[in-house]
């Protein structure tokens, strides 16, 4: 029997971390993820976990400490947001290149400047090429479920990569909602004991980690790293299957919502997917074949599967809560369009930038997007493909 609770997204992360009981947590507080190390350090102080909690003086040190701890053989976790993630930047690439299976809770917040504390996806989208697996979460429930699965995915022998679990700052991190929790013993059984194959504190196998890697081997090293991403695609589904058996909650690369017979659809990430679902329901009630695809796994990117899922759609809007300043669209738009190319040609695709810096995303905004798609299917005219919604021009 699961436990019926009500928690904020940050509380959900802290509870999952308590249940996982990692060996090491190193973190530096930054809004809106501050509550995660705050709640977790209370669990440490209360003796509810046996974790070594390292309070550091910056996020660069937080990630460096995580790298050291994980390399030593410890199951390691951290949390951050926005500029905190940015300060970790160079170490993020080192964590993934060293194949260190740690987990990071990223509470998405707009990256400065201008300085802003509210939600968009500019922080984690900027880290998309750092070699980390990225999972995105619509609700507090998904944050909790994704983090539990992240530990298993990261530590799988065929993966051995760090995983970032993202949720929307304030919108889910600070909103209390219903959630179903697993019992502590079930979580511990699901994540299991961490048994690293190679680690620095193993005196029977003295090894070096992270040495200089010149042209003779560096390319092979990177090729192996990307192989882990290929392998992760299989492992992520296996772990999800096992999780579904335990909880009844189904996870895949993405969620299809009223998508199978949809003529117009949107692709979206994180909390606004929920708001968009209410719009899809309303349109369906009016006989309009609207659908939605919510990306859960952005790294690795499920390109073939997305093309397959969208191939029958006539007009599509890809929603980006981050600018890439390419003057040609946002990061999710670029990925989805490139996935469709040659596999699902002929779909009219718009790319919308929305909700930057915490601009509230209302059902009316999503309705306007679907209205535009409907118009395109009727007139065949696509017009401007790179658009903004909810901004004052």
């Amino acid at each position, binding site marked *: 029997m699961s436990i019926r609770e*009500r928690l904020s997204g940050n509380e959900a992360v802290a509870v999952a971390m308590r249940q996982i009981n990692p060996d090491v947590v190193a973190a530096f507080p930054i809004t*809106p993820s501050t509550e995660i190390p705050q709640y977790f350090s209370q669990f440490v102080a209360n003796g509810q976990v046996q974790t070594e909690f390292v309070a550091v003086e910056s996020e660069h040190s937080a990630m460096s400490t995580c790298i050291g701890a994980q390399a030593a053989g410890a199951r390691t976790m951290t949390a951050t947001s926005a500029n905190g993630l940015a300060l970790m930047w160079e170490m993020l690439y080192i964590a993934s290149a060293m194949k260190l299976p740690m987990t990071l809770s990223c509470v998405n917040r707009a990256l400065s400047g201008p300085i802003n*504390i*509210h939600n968009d996806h500019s922080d984690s989208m900027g880290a998309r090429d750092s070699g980390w697996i990225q999972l995105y979460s*619509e609700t507090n429930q998904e944050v909790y479920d994704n983090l539990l699965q992240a530990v298993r995915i990261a530590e799988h022998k065929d993966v051995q990569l760090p995983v970032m679990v993202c949720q*929307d700052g*304030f*919108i*889910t991190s*600070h*909103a*209390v*909602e*219903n959630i179903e929790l697993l019992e502590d013993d079930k979580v511990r059984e699901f994540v299991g004991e961490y048994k690293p194959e190679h680690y620095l504190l193993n005196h029977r196998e003295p090894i070096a980690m992270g040495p200089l890697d010149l042209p003779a081997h560096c390319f092979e090293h990177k090729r192996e790293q990307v192989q882990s991403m290929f392998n992760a695609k299989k492992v992520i589904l296996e772990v999800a299957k096992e999780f579904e058996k335990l909880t009844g909650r189904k996870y895949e690369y993405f969620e299809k919502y009223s998508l199978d017979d949809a003529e117009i659809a949107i692709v979206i990430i994180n*909390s*606004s997917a*929920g*708001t968009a*679902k*209410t719009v899809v*329901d309303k349109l369906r009630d009016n006989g309009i074949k609207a659908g939605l695809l919510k990306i859960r796994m952005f790294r690795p990117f499920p390109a073939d599967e997305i093309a397959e899922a969208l191939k029958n759609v006539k007009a599509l809007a890809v929603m980006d809560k981050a600018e890439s300043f390419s003057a040609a669209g946002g990061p999710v738009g670029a990925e989805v369009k490139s996935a469709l190319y040659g596999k699902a040609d002929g779909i009219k695709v718009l790319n919308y930038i929305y909700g930057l810096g915490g601009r*509230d*995303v*209302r*059902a009316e905004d999503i309705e306007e997007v679907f209205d535009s798609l409907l118009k395109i299917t009727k007139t065949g005219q696509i017009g401007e493909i790179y658009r903004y919604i909810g901004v004052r021009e």
Partner: protein
Amino acid sequence: MGKLIEIRWHGRGGQGTKTAALLLADAAFNTGKYIQGFPEYGPERMGAPITAYNRISDERIKTHSNIYEPDYVVVVDESLISAIDVTSGLKETGAIIINTEKKPEELRRHLKGYKGKVCTIDARRISEETIGRNFPNTPMLGAVVAVSSIMEPQKFLEDMKESFAHKFKTKPEIIEGNMKAIERAMQEVQGI
């Protein structure tokens, strides 16, 4: 869609408005509902206007946006009425509940022609007489339950007693005052 009730709270930083919204979410959760309780964050400082929200439903709540057409508006600080548009989008089938010593008819003329119910509660006096300090959020909570139909009043009282017993484990003397504040607010709220 099951019955969804949306509430918007207006208060000033330091008055416990966010806490009140979270307590209401808690109480509704305990009666088996799906809930959301969330504040709209800005620069956090004492006295600055703050907004908090509740959604309460029999079904899972998917929407993640602020509330623009609430069923109920709760004003924890009367001075906000002249500072912000508190009845913005408020449904006429709903109500506005204001912490004031004035009567509903005195306040209606400041509410830009709002035609729905105007309810008033002297939360300051009640909290001073029961808790001993100006803690308006506890009586406001009672007033909201009395005015709205989000939960059975009796069930709400039982639940609050339990949650206060948990929250003030080390200070049991506080529980009685808080419970009295809620009970009195439920009886004294005007304009229902």
